[in-house]
């Protein structure tokens, strides 16, 4: 991804190369934003800057991080997934109900919510990739369909965590090197997905189709297949988040995670993943999710009203998108300059 910067250095224009590399690194911006937030809140309230508080933020944000990673994968392909909240509800309820009904089988059943999420992802993928339904419409529709299915399955009941076999709670409250199991899981997910997107073939194809869908057939790639795989991957990740979601809250109901899709989209956008596709990475999305969790936590600490939080979230999204557009425009200019220099 830094090949343009290298090319610039190669022709003897290192400053141009540095500027390109800086702009192409989308993570820097959102990381700076997070640091700014932490400084801001710490100055306003010293209680913010404690290890325990950081732990709280990490705990609260870890599930959102996983969902944001999933959403980022879809956004990278220049599509949207508005059904993540409903997939969480369906996967966590049905999956954990299966666990409840078969307590003896053990931790391998943790795969059930993941697989259900994958199945939902396949439905989304089929609609968007193969049936050419625009992703906004398709996922808006599947959002209601999945949630309706969750309600019908639940039939007015709820699942209490105490009805689940002990290994479920153990996973949720486990600790590794002093960090909560949830945080470790989120960290692993970000690292694995980030590396996979960068070095695996499927990952690079996802970036390709997001940057320039028209060029994809010229490289011998099948566009619909890539998008389908992206949605399935998102579904699997959402299924994993669903498992952790349900276990954390103490009891599982079909109306879990309403509005999660918009928060995930906000995290992705703030995290520097361009909604035009092809630019940004999951590390940015994860930091974006942490930033949102930080804002929430900080505002509660300060005793700020609901209005402030909503306004800040909304303003953050608009600002992030504007900044993204400016960066893209500037990058285009710099790359044009580079091309001219190379030609001469």
């Amino acid at each position, binding site marked *: 991804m830094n090949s343009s910067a290298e090319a610039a250095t190669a022709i003897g224009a290192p400053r141009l190369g540095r500027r390109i590399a800086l702009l192409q690194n989308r993570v820097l911006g959102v990381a700076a934003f997070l640091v700014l937030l932490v400084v801001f809140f710490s100055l306003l309230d010293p*209680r913010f800057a*404690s290890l*325990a*508080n950081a732990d*709280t933020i990490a*705990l*609260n944000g870890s599930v959102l991080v996983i969902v944001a990673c999933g959403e980022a994968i879809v956004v990278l392909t220049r599509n949207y997934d508005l059904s993540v909240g409903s997939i969480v509800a369906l996967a966590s309820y049905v999956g954990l109900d299966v666990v409840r009904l078969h307590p003896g089988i053990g931790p391998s059943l943790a795969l059930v919510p993941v697989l259900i999420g994958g199945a939902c992802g396949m439905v989304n993928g089929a609609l968007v990739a193969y049936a050419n339904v625009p992703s906004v419409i398709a996922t808006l529709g599947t959002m209601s369909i999945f*949630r*309706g299915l969750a*309600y019908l399955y*639940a039939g*007015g*009941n*709820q699942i*209490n*965590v*105490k009805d689940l076999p002990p290994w479920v709670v153990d996973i*949720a*409250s486990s600790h590794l090197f002093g960090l909560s199991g949830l945080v470790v899981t989120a960290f692993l997910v970000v690292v694995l997905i980030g590396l996979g997107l960068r070095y695996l073939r499927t990952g690079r194809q996802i970036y390709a189709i997001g940057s320039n869908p028209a060029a994809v057939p010229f490289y011998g790639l099948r566009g619909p297949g890539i998008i389908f795989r992206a949605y399935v991957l998102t579904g699997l990740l959402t299924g994993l988040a669903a498992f952790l*979601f349900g276990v*954390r*809250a*103490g*009891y599982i*109901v*079909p*109306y*879990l*995670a*309403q509005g999660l899709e918009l928060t995930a989209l906000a995290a992705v956008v703030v995290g520097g993943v361009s909604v035009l596709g092809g630019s940004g990475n999951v590390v940015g999305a994860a930091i974006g999710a942490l930033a949102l*969790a930080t804002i*929430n*936590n900080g505002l*509660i*600490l300060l*005793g700020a009203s*609901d209005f402030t939080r909503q306004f800040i979230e909304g303003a953050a999204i608009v600002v992030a998108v504007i900044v993204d557009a400016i960066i893209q425009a500037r990058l285009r200019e710099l790359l044009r300059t580079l091309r001219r220099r190379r030609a001469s």
Partner: protein
Amino acid sequence: MTDKQQYLRDYAVREWVAGRTSRRTLLRQLLGAGISLPAIAAILAESGIAIGAADAARPLRIFNVPKFTGFVYFELAKAGGAKACKELGAQQIYVGTTTADVEGQVQVLQNILPQHPDGIVLASLDLNAPVPVLRRALSEGTVVVTFDADVAPAGRTLFVNMAPFKVQAKAMLESALANAPEGGKSIWIAPTPTVANFISQKKALDELIASEPRYRSIRFIDTLYANDDPEKSYSVGSSAMQAHPDLKLFITGSGISNPAINKAIQDTGRAGKVFSTGFALPSTMKTFLEDGTCKQFALWSPFQYGYMATYCAILLKSGKMKTAPGTRISIPSIGERTIGEGAVTNLSEMVFFTKGHEDFDTAIPMRS
């Protein structure tokens, strides 16, 4: 229409209205009588209106509309209502939206209206939004009984409160003291700032703390909103514990927030130092009672609640009860209750749940 056709039509409609035949049979009988399709359509339209004037042996139809479906609390209320209908020979129809959608609930009521309900038992999401529809229902002779959350008095015949707000506040404060006898800093958790119930509860709490020396140790330092969402309650609870290290109590009337905050207390290892109590459903709090994270909380039986509200609705519709202030009503398995000013009555069956008393059957009744 010939005499014979008229006779067959009356017979078919009567049988169907009484519930002894299905719609399909009705259509078959009408078609078999040789009545033309336009006439059948007219009959179907008419019988909707004629139902009011039909046989007295027809069972009353009571529509039960919860805040949202899929929640155990309202499912229990539905079961209670069904029991009341069974005892009094009425028919219950349970219908509602899946989310706390104000417009959706009003839409549900609008769709109930043309079905000429005899009674509507409603747990409203908004104080005022359903009132135009309910006013229309009242003007057509429907009885509207609200429970769990009221509407403006112009829109209902009777409101069955779970208990006078003072009693509710007392129950919550007693549970708070049972968890943390020395009292301390407390936070009030409500779903949103606009739910009338919670506003009244908080007011009663403040008044009780100010007037009774027993509760003076409980000091409210903040109010937080968790939208009746388990996840939001969890993060709000954990953040609040960070913000106030010497926090002692979370008090809330929301049965959804309580278990989630208890879980947050457990997960952050503060069990025994911070407590979350108030109202909650026993099925969701069993683990926390067993391991001591929560020592006591209060509730009333939603089953009895639905039972009482529906019972009153049926009595009101059949004219056996009036809503004048001071009227005494007697409800089996609940007892005698009085109707107060503004057509409000109370269930007044607060119970406490503690370790060893974890079900509705074993709960400790509150003596006010």
